[in-house]
């Protein structure tokens, strides 16, 4: 069974079509990355999976169709989205943000245990748990956003440009933690990134988008190794 199966996906912002007949699949347990230049439609793809934009075409998650459903219900089905801009509740505290991540869960004790695990994984969050989320640094907000998404205990984690605006050392730290999460907690990931080098290091599979269409797909290792592809499409 595929984790996520997207077929003939088109997406619009109002009257403007942004995605054209996209097809891609995710396997359970893997990390897949979507690469491409600005405006290629990467963020839109993630939004389409969450049904935050108008789409046609089928999106199947764990053998159930999710296209046409409300975002809240897709989240409840086990997909967590860390949007671009992080989407933290800046006026609420760090702990309130994390608790909200677990809003739909009924298992109180497990939620508390997860909270502790987030704090041990990101000690900086523990230090600031009573602080307003808006006062955290960029890197800390990203950690908070990822933790909040993980509090859902999702099967699939969507990440939109987690490296954006962060210092290289922090980015390295975050990507290392993402690898851990994937291996230890068996959370599959769909990663949208501008920084192709970082993404190809982490992911197993990659798709390349150009103006709303898939132009290349293959194992990340192959793409990373192929110098001509890298130079033409990824600029390095």
């Amino acid at each position, binding site marked *: 069974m595929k984790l996520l199966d997207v077929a003939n996906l088109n997406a619009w912002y109002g009257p403007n079509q942004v995605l054209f007949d996209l097809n891609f699949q995710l396997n359970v347990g893997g990390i897949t990355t979507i690469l491409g230049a600005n405006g290629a439609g990467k963020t839109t793809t993630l939004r389409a999976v*969450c049904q*935050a934009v108008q789409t046609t075409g089928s999106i199947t998650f764990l053998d159930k169709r999710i296209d046409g459903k*409300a*975002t*809240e219900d897709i*989240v*409840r089905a086990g997909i*967590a*989205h860390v*949007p671009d801009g992080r*989407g*933290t*509740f*800046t*006026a*609420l505290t760090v702990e*309130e943000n994390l*608790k*909200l*991540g677990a*809003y*739909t869960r009924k298992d109180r004790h497990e939620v508390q245990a997860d909270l502790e695990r987030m704090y041990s994984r990101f000690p900086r969050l523990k230090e600031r748990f009573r602080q307003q989320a808006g006062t955290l640094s960029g890197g800390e907000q990203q950690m908070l956003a990822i933790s*909040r*998404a993980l509090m*859902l205990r999702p099967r699939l984690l969507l990440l939109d440009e987690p490296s954006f605006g962060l210092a290289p050392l922090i980015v390295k730290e975050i990507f290392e933690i993402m690898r851990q999460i994937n291996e230890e907690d068996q959370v599959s990931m769909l990663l949208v990134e501008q920084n192709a080098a970082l993404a190809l290091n982490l992911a197993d599979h990659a798709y390349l988008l150009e103006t709303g269409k898939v132009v290349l797909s293959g194992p990340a290792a192959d793409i990373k190794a192929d110098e001509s592809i890298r130079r033409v499409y990824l600029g390095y």
Partner: protein
Amino acid sequence: MDSFVLQVTAGLANGGIYAAVGLALVMIHQATHHINFAQGEMATFSTFIAWAMIQAGVPYWIAFVVTMVVSFVAGLLIQRIFLKPVEKAPILTNVIVFVGLLVIFNAFAGWIFEHTIKSFPSPFPVEGMFLPKYFSGHQIGSISVTLVVLLSVFCFFRFTPLGLAMRAAAFNPESARLVGIRVSWMLALGWGMAALIGAVAGMMIAPIVFLDPNMMAGILLYGFAAALLGGIDNPWGAVVGGVILGVLENILGAYVIGSDLKLTMALVLIVTILIFRPYGLFGKPIFSRV
């Protein structure tokens, strides 16, 4: 000196009412960015329902609680039925819907209960239980009831998961959806709570100003002023604003302006705040992008 203190205490009691109405307005504005012009008429209608029950022999506090529940459900349904369809419509359409609701509630109140002025009972003893020299029984009771309601609302938002979810939905509906919160229902809940608070305000003020379909018009105006004074998105600002306004109204009315221009005073206050300090005493300025 005594009469001054009496003006202040009366102002505190009225201020509690203005605080409650202001809070109801802020709750809806915070979540939906709309101003509920129908808030006053909804509260009046709720008070009429309570009146009808009491006339039929229902004991006061039972009528009180039933009215709160009915108002809550009605507020919830109104959001679902009348406001959800125009959620994404332009502001003018929403304003038209609010005015339409205002008019309908006023009309039905007049139709069903007629325009004759009615007296509404106070459940509190005539003599004040606390500082009887300065507070009447109803004033103490009214302040206590509004305090209980406000405190309950505060605890609800601060300490319960649902309250947290409602706050999240109000601050950032998109992110709220991403944690699985059904934002639409949070809005409906907010409406229900606002209707409930409005009903309490109506039942507390009715014994003083007497009950008729136009009872709340002036009070609504003061509720707006209170909400603006405290910062239209700040619930506790509305409470503080309401109390300040209540006292100010009485002091200015007794010593400076006379009681003939109370509504004009509210108007001047509203316009002044909107122009010079639109985010109120406690709010933060919000910048909009092109």
